[in-house]
């Protein structure tokens, strides 16, 4: 017995020592930019100030707090490197970094808002694009933003960016003078669209780019080097990120702007809702869809329901019989309870898709066909194809992280069961689902549920190409479909985008109808996004083109 007691005491003592060491050696994650100390005595860092003697700690009485915006988001940092960034951290990147230009929500008067570029033009053949840069812009670390910075950023993105493929059309970038840069393309492409992308288009300080070239973990401790209105103050992984306003921001500051923004990383939507209702945060990025009704009838809140960039697609394995028969696929497409899926899995927040191009994004058109939920038609087609009672099994995979997919997979299963098709549902981590689909098609799934979004606002060269164009090693073509007509028609439509938009649109419509008719996949729905904004916050403007960035800090102010 004594032995155990001794053991416990030693264990506790050691753990205490380890944690005390941990506390002391924790690298203070504060920004490195030369910030003029705020006049109010506020300590915003959470890291232990190892070098600061205790006497410098602010007095414990409540001090006058700076204007702080508190937000709850699910978004986490998978990387701090703006070049590599390709995921949820975009919610924060978009406030610390800027692109050359930003695309406005559909229906705006102007298509683009100039940011780091004041104006731009392209040659008639669409192969040469010239951008005139804004002068007087500095990065958070003091460097000047000029053509060299742009060239370095874009070249880095094309070379090893997370979204490097968006720069595939780029041949070279050339500096004409300090504030003029030219993009020379291999083939015509809408560089204005590409440069407005949420990924792979951030302009980064040359000093930082050099640092990361030397040490590729340079950014990961929590550093940034952008031109955006807010700069990083402190970062606690999985917990929170705090931003301070960048005093030298080229856009200038109004007294209504927030001095600081505190983003709490909260993975559960229910918790976010509770924080919002309890007044602990001003804004919440995700509210459970089912609970929106209570907010709609609450006069203290405004609920915005907007079209989003996201859609759900289900790929059929077109290499495996009987799914290699288009009639069977068409039959199955009639057997999907589209409306039920929207109502149940998405609480009504969605509209049935027309092809994998989401509504509101080029080249969507309402002249593209859709299937309806028609079990009779489904049975008829199946019988014609030679499977009057179904009789074959299907293996459906979906991402376990996605609770919506978890909810509508059983609906598909039950519906197909009525046709005599036995569906086995397998949930796995998205990475594993992905792995499985890329492995030998003989082992692969029969149906793959996918949540998709284009990297920038061109679902022709993105969605249509990525998902159904044939490449030998499938990229997102998880139906393994190879249709030469589709491939060539799509090539043509993409090529004409810049040169002859009207012709291109018509070509796209034809190619989308071909896709829908051959049904290598099911096009479930375009989702809608819902945001609950309390009345005391003004300036919320939803931009469908930037789905991961619900909140643009610079535009939000307290309401009068």
């Amino acid at each position: 017995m004594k032995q155990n007691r001794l053991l416990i005491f030693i264990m506790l003592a050691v753990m205490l020592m380890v944690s005390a060491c941990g506390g002391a050696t924790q690298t203070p994650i504060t920004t490195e930019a030369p910030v003029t100390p705020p006049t109010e005595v506020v300590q915003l860092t959470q890291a232990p100030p190892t070098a600061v003697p205790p006497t410098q700690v602010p007095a414990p009485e409540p001090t006058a707090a700076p204007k702080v915006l508190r937000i709850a988001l699910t978004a986490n940092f998978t990387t701090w490197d703006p070049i590599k960034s390709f995921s949820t951290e975009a919610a924060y990147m978009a406030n610390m970094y800027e692109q050359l230009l930003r695309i406005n929500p559909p229906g705006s008067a102007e298509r683009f808002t100039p940011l780091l570029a004041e104006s731009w033009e392209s040659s008639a053949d669409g192969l040469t694009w010239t951008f005139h840069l804004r002068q007087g812009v500095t990065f958070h670390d003091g460097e000047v933003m000029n053509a060299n910075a742009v060239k370095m950023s874009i070249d880095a993105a094309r070379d090893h960016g997370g979204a490097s493929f968006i720069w595939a059309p780029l041949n070279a970038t050339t500096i004409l003078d300090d504030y003029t840069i030219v993009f020379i393309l291999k083939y015509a492409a809408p560089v204005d669209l590409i440069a407005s992308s949420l990924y792979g288009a951030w302009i980064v300080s040359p000093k930082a780019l050099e640092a990361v070239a030397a040490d590729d973990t340079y950014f990961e401790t929590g550093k940034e080097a952008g031109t955006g209105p807010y700069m990083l103050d402190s970062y606690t992984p999985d917990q929170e990120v705090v931003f301070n306003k960048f005093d030298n921001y080229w856009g200038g500051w109004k007294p209504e702007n927030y001095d600081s923004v505190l983003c709490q990383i909260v993975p559960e939507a229910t918790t976010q809702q509770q924080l919002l209702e309890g007044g602990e945060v001003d804004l919440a990025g995700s509210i459970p869809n089912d609970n929106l009704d209570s907010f709609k009838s609450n006069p203290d809140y405004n609920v915005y329901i907007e079209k989003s960039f996201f859609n759900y697609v289900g790929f059929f394995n077109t290499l495996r019989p009987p799914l290699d028969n288009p009639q069977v696929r068409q039959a199955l497409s009639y057997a999907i309870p589209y409306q039920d899926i929207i109502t149940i899995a998405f609480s009504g927040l969605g509209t049935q898709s027309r092809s994998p191009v989401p509504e509101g994004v080029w080249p969507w058109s309402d002249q593209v066909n859709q299937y309806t939920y028609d079990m009779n038609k489904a049975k008829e087609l199946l019988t014609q194809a030679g499977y009057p009672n179904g009789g074959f099994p299907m293996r459906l995979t979906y991402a376990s992280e996605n609770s919506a997919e978890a909810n509508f997979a059983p609906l598909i299963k039950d519906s197909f069961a009525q046709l005599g098709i036995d569906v086995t549902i397998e949930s796995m981590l998205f990475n594993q689902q992905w792995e499985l689909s890329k492995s030998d098609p003989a082992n692969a799934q029969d149906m793959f549920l996918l949540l998709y979004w284009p990297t920038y606002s061109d679902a022709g060269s993105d969605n249509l190409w990525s998902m159904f164009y044939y490449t030998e090693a499938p990229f997102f073509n998880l139906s393994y479909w190879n249709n030469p007509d589709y491939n060539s028609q799509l090539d043509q439509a993409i090529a004409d985008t810049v040169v002859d938009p009207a012709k291109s649109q018509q070509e796209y419509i034809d190619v989308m109808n071909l896709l829908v008719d051959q049904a290598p996949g099911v096009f479930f729905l375009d989702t809608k996004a819902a945001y609950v904004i309390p009345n005391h916050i003004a300036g919320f403007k939803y931009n469908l083109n930037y789905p991961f960035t619900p909140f643009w800090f610079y535009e939000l102010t307290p309401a009068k």
Partner: protein
Amino acid sequence: MHRVEFILRRLLSSIFVLIGVSIITFTVARVIPSNAAAMYIGPKARPEDIARVTVKLGLDKPLPVQYLVYMGELLHGDLGTSIGTKRPVLLELSSRLPATLELLFTGMAIAVIIGVPMGVISARWQGKPTDVFVRVIAIIGVSMPAFYLGLLLQILFFRRLDLLPLAGRFSNELRFTNPINMVTNFLLIDALIMRNWIALKDVAYHLVLPALTLAAYPAGLVARMTRATMLEVMEQDYIRTARAYGIRETVIVYFYALKNALSPTLTVIGLTFAFALTGTFFVEVIFNWPGLGLFTVHSLLNVDYPAIMGITLFGSVMYVLINLAVDLLQAWIDPRISLK
């Protein structure tokens, strides 16, 4: 000579266990998952990127080589880099440990404060309704799923009664109004030393529900053990003698019996600490508590293999080393042990 032999044997067996632990962890975390490189960069990467990362992470080398490389890094204190946060695993562990420890200590304190008196009272009134009542309460504590209890407490105290906060270690406002100077990262202590009373109150409030949830199981266990030990002690001759002398029952129970029951009870408290540890997984998930438990769950769900290896190794190595130290110490104190 026996002593030396004993020490050597224990050392050798500990090394064996440590190596075994590292092999098992390595196998579980790196061999079994299929394509670690793809998981590192994400799905939209091109094949050439995957190839590049595979080489960079050293995943193209044969397994035994990978293992040796890993062991080499380990001995230098390098536990690898977390895929999720891209920071060193050791840093992730050390920065989150205080949060978990603070929760654990508070929870155990509550468990002891509730459990020991419960056990004593139950033993005092053995067989009476009080005893039955306490025993039922104790066994309920041991049977209640921690994740369920946490949810219930949240609904009751946050949603319905609005008395206690929902999640996290402290409120957002605190950062700007009464920031806590993080010295030890044990927030209660940090707030205390700077006499930051407002922060202290806030932090304490945030600790209540998670600690209560965590304490349910150990409290029940401690109550049961205390009762059993007390009963056993109270059967002893010297207690009967004290009664024969006419000493009051209350004095007998609360003074003599308790004093002697304390020692084995302390042992049990130490052991329940280990079980409370596993409770932290659920409590931290429900209350969004930024400790090791939450990090472990996230790493497991995301198959962040360096983090998983780091956590498992950390826990196991601690255990083995401490066992070894205690054994050696014991042998030094009491040489007879080395003869066994």
